[in-house]
């Protein structure tokens, strides 16, 4: 068969069902072969390669399986760069396949030649340039294995046009052996016993769960552990939805715009069990004043994360699921009621000073939080929320009451505006039976707005809520608080979003009165195809609480 056919056969061997892509010169042999694979591989034609990358991420985030993006050489490949970086920072398994100029033309500045291996080396877990068709099967097997094992991440396979056209014998390897790559799956029992001892002696233990828990499918194990040992839990942004929000031990979200109690009390805890999280600067604030009273236990699959930002006392290297199963055996129930009730007083204060006024529907103006709160209520917390970046993202994280895991998809590490719409397309392809809702600002919606065309073409019932404050809201908030209200290039003269959507053949509606919100949301949720709801919200709403840059977690501001 040809190299191009070998590419598609490799995808089938990896049980790939859907590809997000965009054709072009150097990938044409693969697209030609794809013509005969239409019934086996579903190809979604995006309108920009960046969107293919984010869609692959959205697919991977809800299914746990690698998402696949396909693009041509040169600009097609470089357009993937933002999505690849996004996947790198958020540990998302995606496999990007790019066409490349013919092997004989490599390095000659040929038409649409870009050194995409050079460009993506710092932003991929692994990448490889195929110049001979005979390499295809082995390289694909490696790529898929690397992307989804250990700490997942993006891989890129660059294939020259000549390799796509060459004949080869296709033999897909059953096992992949890599001399230097052995993701750890078991944890050291001696360390686990020591950790259990520390946990059992703790007076004020606190478990911080991150994305790693969701990746390892260890949500139940976290729940069992904290229930057995009676320990409060808080989630990082990507840990959200992994622990039921209504649970008595759930204390909220960590981080810059997280909940008041879990942030402040991080500095009171005497033992911190950090699971599948990496002490990101948005979580720790000033590291020199972070959790100084705590003995820190860190469970992670990536050894490079230990002691990177925060010194830890005991590190457990390995899969979170197995480590937690082991740990649970050795911990015992302790009465931490006094410690647990300390969270309550902070929760009350946050409710009184921030939440209550934010979520209450007022007569005249809508707040972002009131929209998300009503949406949460109407969907019973069961939807997949795909948030963009900025205020919309933080409000969605704070006010949506998640009941199911893998339900909050957002660009956390890289903070990529324009992520939400394409990522939601991928998420919807991954979980077609779940309600997938985009929450996006008026700024972010205009980055990758072209994907409305993809939604319309594929009739993908993704629902979009634009929280429109006619500002780049988060930057404006910072300018108000830290730059003396010098609003520098943050006010937007927006298009008529409803007209734009309709121009793309996507139904849309605009709401600016609180009284009309419920009915508009009902219509949005009931729509059979894609639908957009633009909600005009208060212009100068701010997200609180807030931990200013350089502040300590205990210095969270409520106003």
């Amino acid at each position, binding site marked *: 068969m040809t190299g191009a056919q070998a590419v598609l056969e490799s995808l089938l061997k990896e049980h790939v069902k859907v590809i997000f892509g965009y054709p072009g010169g150097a990938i044409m042999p693969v697209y030609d072969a794809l013509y005969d694979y239409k019934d086996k591989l579903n190809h979604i034609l995006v309108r920009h390669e960046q969107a293919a990358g984010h869609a692959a991420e959205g697919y991977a985030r809800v299914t746990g399986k690698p998402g696949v993006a396909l693009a041509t050489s040169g600009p097609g490949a470089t357009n993937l760069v933002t999505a690849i970086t996004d996947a790198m920072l958020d540990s998302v398994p995606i496999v990007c396949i790019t066409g490349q100029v013919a092997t004989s033309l490599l390095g000659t500045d040929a038409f649409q030649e870009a050194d995409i*291996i050079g460009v993506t*080396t*710092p932003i991929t877990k692994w990448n490889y340039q195929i110049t001979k068709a005979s390499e295809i099967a082995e390289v694909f097997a490696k790529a898929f294995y690397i992307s989804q094992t250990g700490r997942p991440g993006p891989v890129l396979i660059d294939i020259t046009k000549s390799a796509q056209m060459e004949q080869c014998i296709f033999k897909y390897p059953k096992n992949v052996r*890599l*001399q*230097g*790559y052995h993701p750890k799956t078991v944890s050291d029992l001696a360390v686990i016993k020591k950790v259990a001892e520390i946990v059992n002696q703790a007076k004020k233990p606190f478990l911080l769960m991150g994305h790693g828990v969701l990746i390892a499918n260890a949500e139940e194990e976290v729940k069992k552990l904290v229930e057995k040992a009676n320990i409060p839990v808080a989630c990082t942004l990507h840990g959200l939805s992994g622990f039921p929000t209504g649970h008595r031990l759930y204390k909220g979200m960590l981080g810059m715009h997280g909940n008041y109690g879990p942030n402040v009390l991080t500095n009171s805890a005497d033992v911190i069990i950090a699971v599948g999280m990496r002490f990101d600067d948005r979580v720790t604030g000033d590291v020199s004043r972070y959790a100084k009273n705590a003995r820190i236990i860190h469970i992670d699959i990536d050894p*490079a994360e230990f002691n*990177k930002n925060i010194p830890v006392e005991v590190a457990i290297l390995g899969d979170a699921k197995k480590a937690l199963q082991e740990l649970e055996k050795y911990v015992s129930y302790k009465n931490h009621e006094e410690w647990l009730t300390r969270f309550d007083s902070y929760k009350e204060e946050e409710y009184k000073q921030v939440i209550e006024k934010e979520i209450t529907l007022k007569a005249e103006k809508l707040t972002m939080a009131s929209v998300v709160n009503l949406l949460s209520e109407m969907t019973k917390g069961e939807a997949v929320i795909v948030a963009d970046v900025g205020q919309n993202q933080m409000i969605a994280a704070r006010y949506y009451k998640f009941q199911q895991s893998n339900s909050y998809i957002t660009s956390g590490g890289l903070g990529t505006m324009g992520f939400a719409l394409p990522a939601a397309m991928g998420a919807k392809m991954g979980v077609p039976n779940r309600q997938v809702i985009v929450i996006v600002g008026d700024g972010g919606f205009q980055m990758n707005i072209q994907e409305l065309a993809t939604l319309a073409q594929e009739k993908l019932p993704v629902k979009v809520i634009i929280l429109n404050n006619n500002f780049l809201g988060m930057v404006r908030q910072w300018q108000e608080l830290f730059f003396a209200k010098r609003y520098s290039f943050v006010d937007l003269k927006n298009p008529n979003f409803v007209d734009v959507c309709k121009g793309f053949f996507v139904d849309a509606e605009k709401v600016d009165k609180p009284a009309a919100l419920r009915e508009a949301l009902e219509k949005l949720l009931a729509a059979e195809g894609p639908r957009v709801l633009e909600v005009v919200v208060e212009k100068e709403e701010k997200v609180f609480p807030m931990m200013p840059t350089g502040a300590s977690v205990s210095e969270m501001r409520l106003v």
Partner: protein
Amino acid sequence: MKKIYLCTILSEDKPGVLYRVADIFLRRKINIEGIISVKNKEEKLSKISIFVEETQEAVDKTIRQIDRIIEVVNAVAKVASIEDIKKFMKAGEITI
């Protein structure tokens, strides 16, 4: 306190590994003082020796990130001895 460290990286002999290693030093703005990369044909491995002047903490973190590179089999660092530096200087004089 900064000292001269010798980082020894054992890796599969594949193109691009040195690129990834150098990039990790670059991201942390660590200047490479000296570098030798030699193939070991029997084991099909390549041994990269890198001298840097840095703090223990920065070197440790960098080494752990290098160890993450898929092709890297092992990465370690130690404070360079006078002997190490002499050997390196001598190797640098070799002309092929």
